């Protein structure tokens, strides 16, 4: 089963994203900060990470950069979708510079998020 890791310190958002992705037939795990997210990524080896930017302990950009620099080449290539309220052009540049695969700005459309997740995963990964 395709595994997705959602890392967001806002439980309202994390629950919603998890719900939406579960409906796609994905196996979803949730963490609430970058440090826990990085540890979970190393343990779970997800097929995709949905990542908030502004979080305690380790922010999303730091976690994304750490993933990209991981010694495990497969983990280092994991698609990362940044989901953030930081909407300025330089923010977007910083997000992609840190290694994000895609970038969604809050307020967001969960339907769009589901579409982008589907597009970032290998064909056949989602059930609908």
């Amino acid at each position, binding site marked *: 089963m395709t595994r997705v890791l959602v890392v967001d310190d*806002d439980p*309202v*958002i994390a*629950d*919603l994203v998890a*719900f*939406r992705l579960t*409906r796609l037939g994905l196996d979803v795990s949730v963490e609430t900060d970058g440090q826990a997210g990085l540890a979970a990524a190393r343990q779970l080896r997800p097929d995709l990470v949905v990542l908030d930017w502004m979080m305690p302990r380790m922010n999303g950009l730091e976690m994304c950069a750490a993933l990209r620099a991981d010694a495990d080449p497969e983990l280092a290539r994991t698609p990362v979708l940044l989901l953030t309220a930081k909407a300025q052009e330089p923010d977007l540049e910083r997000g992609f510079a840190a290694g994000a695969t895609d970038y969604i700005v*809050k*307020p*967001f*459309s*969960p*339907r*769009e998020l589901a579409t982008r997740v589907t597009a970032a995963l290998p064909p056949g990964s989602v059930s609908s």
Partner: protein
Amino acid sequence: MTPPAQAAAVGSLVLSGLVVLLLVAVALEHLLRTRRLAREAARRAELTPLVHALLDGESTAELAGAPALLDELVLDLLPQLRGADRSALQAVLLERGVVGRAADQLTARGAARRGRAALLLGNAASAEHTTPLVHLLSDRTAEVRSAAARALGKTGDPAAVGPLLAAVASRQGVPPGVVGMALLDLGTGVLPALRTALDAGRPVTQALAADLIGVHGDPAATDALIALVGDPGRDPDVRRSAAQALGRIGSPVATATLAAALRGSGERPLRGAAAEALGRIGDPAALDPLTAGLRSADADVRGACADALTLFGEPGRLRLAAHAVLCGPSGDAARSALDVLEFTRRPGRHAARA
């Protein structure tokens, strides 16, 4: 024991008792609060799937009997969402009478109630409440006025643009930053009104309009902005905002006017903004005026010119290097910019064009 000693002992005992009572009361309050929060979290957890199911297009028959906590859940989620999911949640608030009750509260006696109602209506994005929200822009309480401005921004109603711009300049006004964010929330539909505002109203409104046009990068406003920068009779803040906007729009059509503003005797912020804008635009025709600006008597202008030259790649670097060998302020500015250039190893955004 003497009577005074007895009295002191009794007093101390009473005091200790009171302290113990206080500690027990605090502990009890903490316990009750923790239980209350746990109960609320459990009830939220029960209701959350209902909201999610709603977003998934499932039947909403259970919604009618759901407790008021559901409204809070929906209101927490609304600011994070857009598109069809946002519309679905707005419909829930409307159906459950939350929007109607908030509209009634817009005229409440308490400022906190009025402010909360305005914020709720903003989250619920009810364009039909634009008129009462506009009235709140002149509320006697500053927080309510700001709440109304933010709410109007979220309604998406273009009819709010005029009143929002007017609120910046009114006696009991709304801070330009708050109005600016609200106007940005309204999207690109506000651009025609902003272009009109460049030439109307008070300077603070014109400057805000120019700033927002710059953020949108609206090329249709280029000629009007050029006219503002080139008109020495205009307010200095308006001219500065117009110059910054031209830099963001990035059209070389503005180069000559910005170069003239840089060379002119205008106020320092205008000349600095003109230099920065020339750097952003990257027209090679700006290399000479920016290089001349390195010899400005004003340190800020010299710095802005040097920073702008770093954006031109090799041609800019060569101009800076030629000045860096000189003694005096222009050499200092050039050396400082070259240090930054070396540190960041910026290749120059306009290297290809220049």
